[in-house]
């Protein structure tokens, strides 16, 4: 029987089969040359086998037994210590440990006790296998995977019987309509996906995704407020070389109404101020205000917010993929994977002297999309 175990001492080339080619030998010249048999031809029985100390000396075997028992005992102890740590240590206690730094004491104790307890079970089991269980390899034959011709024929016969009994071949129209019905049946499942998003925001009524992506909350006269404290800004608040992250003044209301941060992800801007002499180009005539320029904060590559600004070179660097934009030169790309310049927001001041947007962006902010053009 092919699955029988053959103890290694019986392994001979005859018994184990020489360099077996299971099925369909190739037309291989180099292989067909009978130089010498393959690796298996050297019988396993001839493998040098050094008995282990635990095989030879009962004393050594007993020592291994003691070791393994100790591991299992320690494992049990660890389970107890885990419970002690769980109950006795406060979850907020921090301790300082060299190399690791300040760590949560309970986390450390729980991890080490639980981990060591589990580890010792494994270590004991493997030590058991390596030192006390047989270390002599055994041989088993492989079954040929393909079916025999008789089995093949039987399968074909059964198929033929099914085909004839069902009349699948004979009823042509019925067969084709069945295939048609099966082809259409998944369609409802696909259609159901449509309502994963519906445009139920009254402010965006009737707009397609591309249209929604193309407009932001900015309108002419809308004040610019700082991100975080939501204070309106005067030109004097921004020093030359400075950068301020900013949002439209109604952002909090929008967020409260929409219960999401979507608008923040589109209308976030940065304000930078440079010597008006340094501005080489802008996206529109007079879009700055006394050297203050407003650019979208959302990268035109894949949409990371950007705030790494080097004021001497006026370069803006995206921390995600290192696209670099020159804010003194109309926000153009000077390096990296972004293809489009950062959209500029035209700004001015209102009668009270606060910075305001002059209009919305003249192009969609953020990453490109198919309908963007």
């Amino acid at each position, binding site marked *: 029987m092919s699955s029988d175990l053959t103890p290694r001492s019986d*392994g001979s080339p005859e018994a184990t089969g020489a360099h077996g080619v*299971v*099925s369909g030998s*190739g*037309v*291989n010249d180099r*292989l067909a040359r009978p130089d*010498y048999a*393959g690796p*298996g*031809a*050297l*019988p*396993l029985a001839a*493998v040098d086998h*050094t008995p*282990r100390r635990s095989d030879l*000396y009962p004393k050594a075997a007993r020592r291994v037994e003691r070791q393994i028992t100790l591991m299992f005992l320690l494992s049990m102890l660890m389970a107890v210590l885990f419970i002690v740590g769980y109950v006795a240590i406060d*979850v*907020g206690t921090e301790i300082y440990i060299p190399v690791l730094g300040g*760590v949560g004491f309970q*986390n*450390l104790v*729980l991890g080490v006790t*639980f*981990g*060591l307890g589990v*580890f010792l*079970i494994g270590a004991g*089991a493997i030590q058991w296998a390596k030192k006390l269980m047989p270390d002599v390899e055994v*041989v*088993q*034959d*492989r079954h040929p995977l393909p079916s025999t011709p008789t089995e093949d024929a039987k399968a074909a016969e059964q198929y033929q019987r099914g085909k004839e009994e069902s009349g699948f071949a004979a009823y042509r129209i019925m067969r084709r309509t069945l295939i048609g019905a099966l082809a259409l049946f998944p369609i409802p499942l696909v259609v159901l*996906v449509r309502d994963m*998003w519906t445009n139920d*925001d009254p402010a965006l009524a009737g707009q*397609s*995704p591309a249209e929604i992506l193309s407009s932001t909350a900015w309108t002419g006269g809308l004040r610019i407020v700082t991100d975080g404290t939501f204070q309106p800004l005067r030109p004097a608040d921004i020093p030359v070389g400075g950068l301020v992250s900013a*949002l439209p003044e109604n952002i909090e209301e929008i967020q409260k109404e929409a*219960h*999401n*941060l*979507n608008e*923040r*992800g589109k209308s976030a801007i940065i304000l930078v101020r440079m010597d008006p002499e340094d501005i080489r180009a802008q996206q529109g005539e007079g879009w700055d205000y006394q050297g203050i320029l407003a650019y979208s904060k959302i990268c035109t*590559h894949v*949409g*990371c*917010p950007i705030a790494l600004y080097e004021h001497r070179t006026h370069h803006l660097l995206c*921390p995600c*993929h*290192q696209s670099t934009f020159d804010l003194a030169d109309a926000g153009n790309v000077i390096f*990296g*994977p972004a*293809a489009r310049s950062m959209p500029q927001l035209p700004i001015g001041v209102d009668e009270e002297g606060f910075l305001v947007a002059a209009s919305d962006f003249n192009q969609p902010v953020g*990453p*490109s999309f*198919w*309908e963007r053009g």
Partner: protein
Amino acid sequence: MSITEKVGAGTADFADQRLGSNKWLGKNLKKVFPDHWSFMLGEIALYSFMVVLITGVFLTLFYKPSLVEVVYEGSYVPLKGVMMTEAYASTLDISFEVRGGLLIRQMHHWSALIFVAAISVHLFRVFFTGAFRKPRELNWVIGVGLLVLALGAGFSGYSLPDDLLSGTGLQIARGIAQSIPIIGTWAAFLLFDGEFPGVDFMSRLYMVHILLIPGLIIGLVTVHLMMVWYQKHTQFPGQGRTNSNVVGYPLLPVYMAKAGGFFFIVFGIITMLSGLVNINPVWIFGPYTPDQVTAGTQPDWYIGWLDGALRVMPNWETVAFGFTLSWNILIPAVIVPGLIFTAMALYPFLESWVSGDKREHHLLDRPRNAPVRTGIGVMSIVFYGLLWIGGGNDLMATTFNLSINAITWFLRITLFLLPPLAFIITKRICLALQRKDRDKLLHGYESGRILRLPHGEFIEVHQPLNNKEKAILMAKLDSEQEPLALPAKTDANGVKNKGYRVESLRARLSHFYFADTIAPPTREEIEAGQAHVAHEAELEAPLHEYEEEAYVQVPFHGGVLHREGAPMTNAEALEDSRRTD
């Protein structure tokens, strides 16, 4: 019979009466599994996945997949009173309020990282040893599927805490979805329920992470293992190991103890690691808002290559007929990964088509004996490694004080230069190793003993190989493959061969794959070589005799050169000699 045995026998009988399971047990408890350290790599993947599942169930008890904004009132002082989503707040609670919660969270993250790493190294082992060849091609395809699913599981998982880092990752994913031609915006809106970050998205991602992907992984892992079981594991060539047998340890008890014990080892190491080494400290990053980002953002290691591809890609974009094609996103994030995974899945079929080899292979190749395959493998690893470096180009620049632009340009060029170079070098090394093997088969190994012959000539004495090594070297024969011959343009009657172009491509590929090889020695050559070795031994024999006379046997090995099983002390040696007497 002890009580345990009685209960066990009762259970076995109960099952057997209903399932006939004893038939199966009787046959399979002695099933043989070959032993090799590299076969543990797949086990690590399996066991770390089990740890992921166990810890994941615990995390679902406390995590809330909701983007509703709440005010944080927990015990982590720096964030007290800060507005954040419930997802982030519940992650903080798991880390700071639930006892052992941080440990389980860190175990979940560590084991996920180890899971993907183990899959990758397991894949290397299977690739370089040719274990994917017939009849195991389907299991290879399943393995590639599992790799892709593991990446998806990892990405969807580390996006759930909704901290600043994970939100940025999602924003990038959304940017990629949006770049897809024609359907991009709609796909992004449907998946994310509108604009980014939206509200419903987190619960959808949660479903993907805890139901969809794990379900698929469990299903595929089951099939993967059943196929290994049914087809039996491959084995490395060695003494007594043929293509039609399995040499190793029986399932009960050795393999069960080793593999079962190894599960606990992996589990234990992950747990200790999670107790000792902090990972993904989301509380430091703060809650996600779409208008903030931290510098030096890094994804988990297995996403690094994709991020690197995005970083090093030149900024190509085409606008035509009012539509935008973002090659700068499509190529690195959609096309290249798609091609890589497709090529990977199809590789076994490509190789068997090129070789024309229809045999079953249960003996593994030594990587050197398949130089072109090994070269392709190393080439791919180099390509991956360069992209991975690209993913950390900002950290490289700040750490080593280099220009980030220079690193990026370096990668843009070397991505095309280094992989082919790696291929050529690897192939040369493989062939050199083959040559060395052939020499060893012919003459045995160099003993390092220099002999001066009476007429003044110096020779180095060669020593015959032992059977174990000989068996391994002879395995070259099993890996040998004759390149396919070029097809004829016309047949004997002058009729044009319709499949000529495809067949000649196949023949040329076959030549590329198999033409360069160091032919294994013939029997005559080996016999001649062995005669040579015998001759040298003869020359050296008088020396040995002389030495043996002068040699005093020292029974104690002193522990320094002690071999396993040899006596440890003088007393033991004495006991030994008495017993043999």
